[in-house]
């Protein structure tokens, strides 16, 4: 489904991605973990074309992600942004239905609103939220609206960028469960980046750990605790001592 080979990206002297190799099968939920500033977001944005990599290849369904029709390519994706990235000037339902009301598959306003309300219900929000504006919602509700927007057009691939950042543990658990349920019922391929281990355990089929610009370890979730990888062990146990340098 997604094949990333030898991906490099630098910002000045900072080599954020130094040869990432990663592959994801269709319907798989991959969670990418790593410390802050290790290039997880850069990797995700490179796949979407929001950042242009210096070198390397990204294949989605066997096709080069940087070539061909951008709109058709992006139509396969849904994305939940870290801060929600909801459009302030639009109401909640207009945010959710944004893609549905544009492009070649454009739906009538009434139909788009109906689907938006259905998606809002799916993420646990009532229909009366539909006409409110993002600024009137709590952080947890904004995440849910972002999730509803990401799944509104029923994409094949969904990206989650730090889905639980800024939420309390209970709300984090709720969002994690929602993500897992939705990914399974849609049969979508999911890529999540996080450093929240509760998200990893709730969402992942497969885990990849990034450090120093490369994938240090990748494997199924049930091998997470027994990998023997020093980078992964240090990260999982939150130790300051180990191969990952921790500045005090």
């Amino acid at each position, binding site marked *: 489904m997604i094949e990333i080979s030898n991906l490099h990206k630098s910002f000045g002297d900072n080599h954020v991605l130094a040869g990432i190799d990663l592959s994801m099968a269709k319907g798989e939920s991959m969670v990418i973990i790593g410390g802050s500033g290790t290039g997880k977001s850069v990797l995700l944005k490179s796949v979407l*074309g929001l950042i242009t990599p210096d070198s390397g290849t990204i294949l989605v369904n066997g096709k080069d992600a940087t070539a061909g029709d*951008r709109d058709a390519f992006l139509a396969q994706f*849904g994305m939940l942004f870290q*801060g929600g990235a909801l459009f302030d000037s639009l109401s909640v339902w207009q945010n959710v239905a*944004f893609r549905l009301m*544009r492009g070649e598959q454009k739906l009538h306003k009434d139909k788009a609103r109906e689907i938006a309300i259905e998606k809002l219900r799916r993420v646990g929000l009532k229909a009366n939220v539909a006409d409110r504006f993002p600024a009137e919602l709590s952080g947890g509700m904004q995440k849910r609206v972002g999730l509803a927007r990401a799944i509104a057009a029923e994409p094949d691939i969904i990206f989650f960028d730090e889905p639980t950042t800024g939420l309390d543990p209970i709300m984090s658990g709720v969002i994690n469960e929602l993500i897992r349920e939705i990914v399974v019922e849609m049969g979508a391929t999911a890529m999540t980046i996080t450093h929240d281990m509760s998200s990893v355990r709730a969402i992942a089929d497969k885990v990849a750990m990034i450090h120093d610009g490369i994938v240090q370890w990748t494997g199924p979730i049930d091998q997470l605790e027994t990998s023997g990888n020093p980078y992964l062990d240090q990260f999982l146990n939150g130790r300051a001592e180990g191969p990952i340098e921790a500045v005090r």
Partner: protein
Amino acid sequence: MDIFLTPFAAIGAATLAILASIGRVVMYAAQTFMHIFRPPFYPRELAAQLLHIGYFSLPVVGLTAIFTGAALALQIYAGGARFNAEAVVPQIVAVGMVRELGPVLVGLMIAARVTSSIAAEIATMKVTEQLDALVTLSTHPMKYLTVPRVLAALIVVPMLVAVGDTIGIMGGYLVATGRLGFNEAAYLQNTYNFLEIMDVVSSLVKGAAFGVIAAMMGCYYGMQSERGAQGVGKATKTSVVAASVLILAANYILTEAFFSA
């Protein structure tokens, strides 16, 4: 040797930076104009911007114009009295407002009110990843944000200039007839007789140019914004400064084009 070369290196680096900056703005403007004619179009966004840039700017334009026209009448009367030319107040107020002060003041007011608001809004959208979200939703930020704003400014700022010119002339009329003893009918007749069609055309063309500059600078610096609150503040400040300077420079160039002997 380095001591002698350092100032030249600094001048060279600054010159290159300025030229690169001009190049980026020109490329951005060229891309914007190309996108104006290519679908998809966003009429709802355009309508919202017509209202925001046009209708909601009317109070500030009206207030600026009326006080400027009134002060202009007083100045011309006092200045004209030095060589017994007090009677030229209607003509000079009309020419001054229509050719110069109307479009320039409206342009600067739009730079203050609209450019700053566009830059702050788009910069905040960038900082909060809303621009990235637009892209992932298959929507080109330039088509969705820049084109409606630039097009709306191109359409409504000439109208605002026409309103500003008229209200400015009325400001002069009120002072001249109320305080300086001018006859009402003769003042309006003199104003009407003295103005030429080219005065009005130049005023409206300047308005269109200044509107495009104001909206373009807001969008450009908003999209170039750096991270954080400081990035948004810097984008807003730079956009207003750039728009104001470019409006004054464009005013000189257009005045040369229309009225040089």
